[in-house]
């Protein structure tokens, strides 16, 4: 302990000594001071070394000039104890004249400790990343070249062409001697005229200008300028032209267009940037105010007055006046507030209501139904009924319509469509048959086939219907209560015979014809009763007894069941039966669906398509008549019927179509199996559409069909190589890039693992990340 204390006291003493020294020394620079000290010490050492050369006392302890904690042979510390910054600072604080030192010291103090370096792997990873990025950047310059080469129509190897070196003429001339007499003569002439042979042909200025801008650059530049000028002149001309146009209509249209555009823009603005829109609004308001003040658009101007005179006789002038007035109104009108607009909407509705055509109102009167949709359906149905050729169809349709439940809306609708479709087609066919009857020959067979077709279609349709109904029945039986089922049962039974009946009806030809006649007859007569009947059906609520029935039933069945399981019932026109429940909702729904699918009549389209396909696939007759051959020719003359008949080659009857008995299938018979082996099945890769491929196939490339030049162009090989020539890898110079002047070797020798400052920056960034 005592030793320790002793040491402390000694330390304090030495500090005091130092403090005493400092003020004296601070004027000198530190290094100088040290230098002096060092010099002295060295000198001392030298003296000692020399004195020890005698041999006697070689090793001598160094003399200590300062107090030290430990005196040891091995731990020589001539500099003394460690200084702490605080020690230095204390005297500085006291004296105000040491500002510079203070600053320096504070700077030293503020410096933080250096962070630990990253571990080696991390550093290497960062190095690699940086290097990779750099390399990728270097490589990216090849992208356009590679792309170009890949897409090139033709590549000629070797790439580096020995360009014909264009030596300046003076060089050529200097190394060339005239040999033949002709050449000599020419030379003589040249020399006589003192043509500059050895002088440079281009002046330095010209050369410099050539060097300043390459030809391509200059060309590009010129092209740009030209384009700019052309554009400018074009716009000028356009503006002039437009200005010259006298047509008022044109200007009106332009103005209107501008106004519209402005409005649209304003709408856009309102959506995007309400604040700007507000400003715009304010502007408009201001314009309105100005207008109000100026009364510019009132009929007080000179032009307006003149127009007013003209207006009596001239419609256009009147219109112009009107327009001006409206404009005035528009401008002077106060802008609507939001609450007002609602009112206005109501107003417009009223207007709309007024706008509804009278027909609707009439119907409404007739049907007493509040729903406009339903009304429309009524009218359409009645219309349909009127156009319906077969009156028998109607009750059935109606029955289905009535009996439909909401869940089964779709299939029934389809049935309807099918049936209607069928009817139409039958009538069509009948008509055609009738027309065929007029023709003397060959109609019998077609008729037969036609009737057969009808039959087959009928069968298919009836089958479908049956199936539908059966399924419905099942559903109903599973869901519904017993009374419902009971109620239901008779209906399909009734219906089925009806459906089955129908094909029988048209089975014989005679009947068909009769039917046709009947139709003609009934067409005139029947529509009215039908209409009436329908209307009577459609207005069940008017009857006094109908609601009662309805009520009764409703008591028995709850509403939901009723909606889902309504029995189909059949009514005929002749025997008007009890009115069925007519659900508003259901009808609405049906109508809605009908309207939604109004455009796409899929089945009709399909059948039409099939008919067309059949027509197209039929072999066509060949007409070989040559107008004017063997008789007088000229405009308007037609070959005689006899000749036509003679030269008409009848097409042989083809084999029957495979889809003859398949009503809902079109089998394409164009496909030839023998040819298929030679046909491409899948569109090959680079083509996006079959016609592209077909076009490439269709254009011949042979010299038989092309001119020699075109043939050569079409058959240029993709890659051309010269036999016996070495093809070197592509070089930067080949494609016009400047290759790096520094060799890889020199680079590697100059910087063995040294990082540039830029890299350092990148490195730092990476490490931060």
């Amino acid at each position, binding site marked *: 302990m005592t030793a320790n204390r002793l040491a402390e006291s000694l330390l304090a003493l030495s500090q005091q000594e130092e403090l005493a020294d400092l003020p004296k020394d601070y004027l000198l620079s530190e290094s100088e001071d040290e230098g002096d000290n060092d010099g002295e010490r060295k000198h001392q050492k030298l003296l000692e070394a020399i004195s020890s050369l005698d041999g006697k006392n070689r090793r001598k302890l160094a003399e200590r000039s300062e107090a030290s904690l430990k005196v040891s042979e091995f731990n020589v510390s001539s500099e003394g104890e460690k200084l702490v910054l605080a020690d230095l600072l204390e005297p500085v604080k006291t004296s105000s004249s040491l500002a510079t030192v203070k600053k320096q010291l504070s700077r030293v103090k503020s410096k933080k400790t250096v962070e630990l370096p990253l571990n080696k792997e991390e550093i290497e990873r960062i190095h690699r990343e940086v290097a990779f990025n750099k390399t990728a950047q270097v490589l990216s310059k090849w992208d356009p070249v590679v792309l170009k080469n890949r897409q090139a129509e033709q590549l000629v190897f070797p790439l580096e062409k020995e360009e014909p070196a264009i030596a300046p003429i003076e060089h050529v001339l200097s190394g060339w001697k005239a040999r033949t007499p002709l050449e000599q003569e020419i030379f003589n002439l040249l020399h006589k005229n003192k043509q500059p042979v050895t002088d440079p042909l281009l002046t330095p200025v010209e050369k410099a200008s050539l060097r300043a801008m390459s030809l391509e650059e200059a060309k590009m530049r010129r092209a740009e300028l030209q384009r700019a000028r052309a554009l400018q002149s074009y716009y000028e001309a356009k503006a002039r032209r437009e200005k010259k146009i006298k047509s008022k209509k044109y200007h009106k249209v332009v103005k209107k267009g501008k106004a519209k555009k402005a409005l649209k823009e304003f709408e856009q603005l309102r959506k995007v940037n309400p604040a700007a829109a507000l400003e715009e609004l304010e502007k408009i308001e201001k314009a309105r105010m100005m207008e109000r003040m100026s009364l510019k658009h009132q009929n007080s101007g000179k032009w307006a007055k003149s127009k007013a005179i003209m207006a009596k006789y001239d419609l256009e002038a009147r219109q112009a006046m009107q327009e001006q007035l409206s404009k005035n109104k528009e401008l002077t009108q106060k802008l609507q507030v939001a609450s007002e607009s609602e009112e206005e909407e109501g107003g417009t509705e009223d207007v709309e209501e007024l706008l509804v055509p009278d027909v609707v109102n009439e119907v409404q009167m007739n049907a007493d139904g509040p729903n406009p949709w339903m009304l429309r359906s009524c009218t359409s149905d009645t219309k349909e009924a009127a156009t319906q050729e077969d009156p028998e169809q109607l009750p059935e349709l109606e029955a289905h319509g009535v009996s439909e439940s909401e869940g089964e809306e779709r299939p029934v609708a389809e049935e309807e469509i099918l049936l209607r479709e069928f009817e139409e087609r039958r009538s069509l066919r009948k008509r055609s048959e009738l027309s065929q009857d007029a023709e003397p020959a060959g109609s019998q067979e077609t008729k037969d086939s036609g009737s057969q077709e009808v039959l087959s279609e009928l069968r298919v349709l009836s089958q479908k219907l049956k199936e539908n109904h059966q399924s419905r029945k099942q559903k109903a039986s599973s869901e519904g209560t017993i009374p419902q089922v009971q109620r239901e049962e008779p209906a399909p039974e009734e219906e089925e015979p009806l459906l089955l009946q129908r094909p029988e009806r048209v089975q014989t030809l005679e009947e068909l014809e009769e039917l046709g006649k009947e139709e003609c007859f009934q067409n005139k007569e029947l529509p009215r009763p039908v209409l009436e009947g329908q209307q009577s059906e459609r207005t069940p609520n008017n009857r006094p007894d109908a609601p009662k029935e309805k009520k009764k039933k409703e008591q028995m069945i709850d509403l939901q069941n009723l909606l889902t399981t309504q029995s189909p019932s059949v009514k005929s026109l002749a025997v008007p039966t009890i009115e069925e429940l007519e659900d508003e909702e259901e009808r609405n729904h049906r109508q809605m669906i009908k309207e939604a699918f109004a455009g796409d009549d899929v089945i009709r389209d399909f059948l039409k398509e099939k008919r067309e396909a059949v027509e197209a696939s039929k072999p066509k007759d060949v007409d070989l008549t040559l107008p004017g051959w063997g008789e007088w020719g000229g405009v308007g003359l037609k070959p005689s019927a006899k000749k036509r008949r003679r030269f008409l080659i009848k097409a042989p009857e083809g084999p029957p179509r495979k889809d003859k008995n398949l009503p809902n299938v079109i089998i394409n018979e164009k496909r030839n199996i023998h040819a298929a082996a030679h046909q491409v099945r899948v569109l090959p890769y680079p083509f996006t559409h079959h016609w592209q491929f077909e076009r490439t196939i269709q254009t011949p490339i042979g010299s038989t069909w092309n001119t020699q030049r075109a*043939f050569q162009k079409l058959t240029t090989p993709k890659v051309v190589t010269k036999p016996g020539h070495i093809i070197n890898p592509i070089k930067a110079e080949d494609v016009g890039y400047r290759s790096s002047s520094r060799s890889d070797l020199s680079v*590697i020798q100059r910087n063995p693992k040294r990082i540039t400052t830029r890299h350092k920056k990148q490195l730092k960034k990476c490490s931060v990340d």
Partner: protein
Amino acid sequence: MQWPPPWRRSPLVSATPPPGPTRGLLCPRRVSEAGDSSTEGARTGHRHYVTPAESAMEGRSQPLPSLRPASPTNAPAHGRGSDCTAKEPPLANVCRQNYGAAQDPVEPAGRRSASHVTGSSLGKAEVACGRRWRWAELLADTSWSPAGRATEMKVKMLSRNPDNYVRETKLDLQRVPRNYDPALHPFEVPREYIRALNATKLERVFAKPFLASLDGHRDGVNCLAKHPEKLATVLSGACDGEVRIWNLTQRNCIRTIQAHEGFVRGICTRFCGTSFFTVGDDKTVKQWKMDGPGYGDEEEPLHTILGKTVYTGIDHHWKEAVFATCGQQVDIWDEQRTNPICSMTWGFDSISSVKFNPIETFLLGSCASDRNIVLYDMRQATPLKKVILDMRTNTICWNPMEAFIFTAANEDYNLYTFDMRALDTPVMVHMDHVSAVLDVDYSPTGKEFVSASFDKSIRIFPVDKSRSREVYHTKRMQHVICVKWTSDSKYIMCGSDEMNIRLWKANASEKLGVLTSREKAAKDYNQKLKEKFQHYPHIKRIARHRHLPKSIYSQIQEQRIMKEARRRKEVNRIKHSKPGSVPLVSEKKKHVVAVVK
């Protein structure tokens, strides 16, 4: 079935002119034949041109049928006699015809008259018929007339401008008039199809790629090198340490050097072609002069560098006196020094090959046996990136036309073409080999590369296709260890286990030697036809058909089954697991394990 048959189509539908009238117009002989038969005897002496008298008689008996409306002045002139004389101007505008030879195909067909001769087989008279004809009128002299009639009569005759059909010199080509109107060539597509089919068949018939076998090595050929300046010189190193230099034109060995003890692992030539370097199993790098030693001198290397470890590969810089070796690490050497200027390592494994990029020459690629491919930058003396594949890569080759593309020959039977900037997905996976791929080399055009495989075959792949275009094999060729594409891109050399170097044509059916221009044109045309119809099933089948050794064939079948099974399994897994839980990995990504930065 086509209806109507082409011969029954009406002339209005098909634009081919009915043969009778057309020919009749153009060929006087036909006309006269069709005309009065009583003139037959008198006409026998005349060949091509109709005598005035004849034509006069014909003119009377039957007017020449013309497709064009006759001009009003012309029509009454027939056999009328005196009033119309030879002053009548030639109806150039009416008769203007275009004889395809000098015509551009783009020209609308409407301008072409249908009255052209379509073929040239009718002899001179008809060849001449393709020229411009003019109806002219001639006054027949009394003395001139064979009939001896003293009456003056007017005769119509065809006249034409000899400038249009007479060659200027004998060396000029005869003009063959041809009408290119597509309407006249209804069968161009089928004809070309047949031509393409024939071309394809002929290609297969003439496909005899094997040229020569260079034998002389006493052990398997381990490495090959091309001479950078001479096409005919090839160097090869064998497994017994012997290096041979071959002359390809003479197909013999020029020089033999016992270079190393043990394998010659790598061989490369200096960019100038004056010397070459070899590395061997005896841990040495040796530099040799390309020219042999003088008479009586011993074969000695220029320099020998003794290393601490075995070098497994070597490649020379493309421009400078620097070369790179690989083994434990990639070393870059200055030719003048015995120590590497820099060594680059990334992990510890034996590196099997190193290749300099031929375009950006400071780039190197190497592949190590721990399944990775490492790229280096020589200037910055650092590795750049590493991609780890499913299996080990044996060697890589840079595309000599595209600086950033290289192809790696992998042990998993596939080759992978990478863009070095995006290593996570190969640009293309080339698969057709049925065993490990040992070597790969690019064609100097950069469009194709050849690969050598352990399955005793070499295959040629287009760079942008995943399937090979060609496979070469012979009965005696064993595992192919090294392969090179010659610098004129015409030939392929491969060295194999059974000590031979084989020389192949790069294009199996190509005719060697100088081609005449007609041959060249035919070749180009056939090539284009094959290209055009390549998707047609018949042609495709013939073009694709190759005979394969049974081992390869059965291997292919087997692998197909395995692949299908794997695919099915994957599909089933996807099907039976929650959607999205089993990711769909594309074939390209499947083989890349990781990319290490």
